[in-house]
């Protein structure tokens, strides 16, 4: 299939699919992180000024916190919060190792320190160029650290099999066609009603009916297939 997914073959002979995330989504996540950092630094600056007055002690502590948050925030988030900074969490992204496992200290530090290299010569030009030429959208830091930014795997809730009376198919369907039919019925409640009816109309050669009746017949076929 021609899609953006990446298949990982595990020792158990199972194919796991991960979806690497592209530059735009990651740029959004970076922007969110950056804005959050700016806000936090601003609030902290005001707070130290308020609590400590105009003292140099407050300024010194502020600079230490500035250093720790600037370099440490993404690393700590990625190691302790499942590969997600706040921006990545918002955008539904996460950092994993190339084998799909969670990142550790070394990988996370390397990829975040090399963000400086990706920034050069300006505005992450190197990182963007590197991502555009790499089939898994890795920037330089990702290549060196052996990491990957993917969409967080989302799981939809599993539903019980179709209830209601079953109806046999008028003629046999291939496994792909059966899957398409089951998928349609499972997704039906997320689709707009008019679109549902339109799709049901398309199935007229199979059901011999149109509109609501055709949709009900499709449900009955699926009940027959799954039970």
């Amino acid at each position, binding site marked *: 299939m021609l899609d953006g997914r990446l298949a990982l073959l*595990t020792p*158990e*002979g*199972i194919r*796991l*699919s991960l979806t690497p995330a592209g530059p735009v989504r990651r740029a959004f996540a970076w922007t969110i992180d950056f804005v959050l950092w700016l806000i936090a630094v601003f609030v902290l600056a005001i707070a130290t000024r308020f609590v400590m007055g105009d*003292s*140099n*002690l407050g*300024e*010194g*502590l*502020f*600079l*230490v916190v*500035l*250093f720790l948050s*600037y*370099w440490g925030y993404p690393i700590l988030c990625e190691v302790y919060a499942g590969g997600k900074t706040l921006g990545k969490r918002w955008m539904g992204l996460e950092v994993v190792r190339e*084998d*799909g*496992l*969670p990142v*550790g200290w*070394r990988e996370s*530090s*390397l990829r975040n*320190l*090399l*963000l*400086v*290299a990706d920034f*050069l010569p300006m505005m992450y030009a190197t990182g963007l160029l590197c991502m555009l030429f790499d089939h898994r959208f890795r920037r*330089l830091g990702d*290549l*060196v*650290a*052996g990491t990957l930014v993917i969409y967080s*795997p*989302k*799981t*939809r*809730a*599993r*539903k019980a*099999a179709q209830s209601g009376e079953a109806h046999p198919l008028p003629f046999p369907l291939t*496994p*792909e066609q*059966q*899957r398409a039919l*089951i*998928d349609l019925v*499972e997704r039906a409640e997320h689709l707009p009603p008019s679109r549902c009816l339109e799709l049901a109309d398309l199935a007229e050669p199979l059901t011999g009916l149109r509109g609501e009746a055709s949709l009900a017949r499709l449900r009955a076929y699926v009940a027959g*297939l*799954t*039970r």
Partner: protein
Amino acid sequence: MKQALFEAQHEALWQRVATLLADKQPSNETQLPALYRQLCQSMALARQRGYSPLLTEHLHGLVLAMHRKLYGTPLERPMTLRRWLGVEFPRRVRQEWRLLLLVCLAFWGVAAAVGLLVWFQPHWAYSWMDWQELTRYESMYSPSKEHIGRDGSDDDVMMFGFYIWNNVSICFRTFAGGLFGGIPALFSLVFNGMHFGVIAAWLSRDPAVAEVFWSFVITHASFEITGLLLSGVAGLRLGLTLIRPGRLSRRHALISASRHIFPVLVGAALLTALAAFFEGFWSASSLIPPMTKFIVGGLCWAMVIGFFVFAGRGQHAA
């Protein structure tokens, strides 16, 4: 087999896996590998028999989470950091002695050349800095100052914060710059060496200022310059690997080089942070007599050099 029957048969397994996954604590479930293999088999069956996409997607999510739980559990490696710093760090620095020589040349060589030039032909100093900057430096190290090396009445903690923020960031930038064939890292080292050479030579011309300046610099320079040079070594290693990956592909060569050099980077960052501590609280104090500072500074240099020459010898590599 119909899907409903299949689901009924495997429901218990899936439930058990789901509860295992919901438990965030590291479990001492010895059945984990066996459970995982059963789960994988059920997913393979569900895919092969063309069961509903919702079911296979759900199973895929379970398998992915189990995969991470099973293989992603970090190995217990007690005292990794201590071993890194005490053994791996000096060993790997010694392995990279050619690069160390190069960065020393880039920093100390340039500093010495520029310094000698300014020492014998002082007017050359103006080609690097204007006179306001030079007088500012001169006033910072004048013997009458309470806090040496600072502009106004800046506090120890404030300067400590500044040194941490500034110096360790330079260290990290030098490392990252090394990736581009090492050129930006070398440039950073040469630039810092030049700066140091000009100021050192200029301030050494006045004996009173010279004593204050050298007693200020000597202690923390042992850690700070070493940290900078080593981050340069780490960056250059990456850059050279990109140019000459050897028998590996460039990507794999970079990954293994970064693994190899990472303890050096950590060590360099820690050394620079240590230097900030000395620079903020020790070097700037005018209460400590210069002689004490020279003795302690000399000891620090001896310790640093001795550490990289002797530490970690005769121990097996990790």
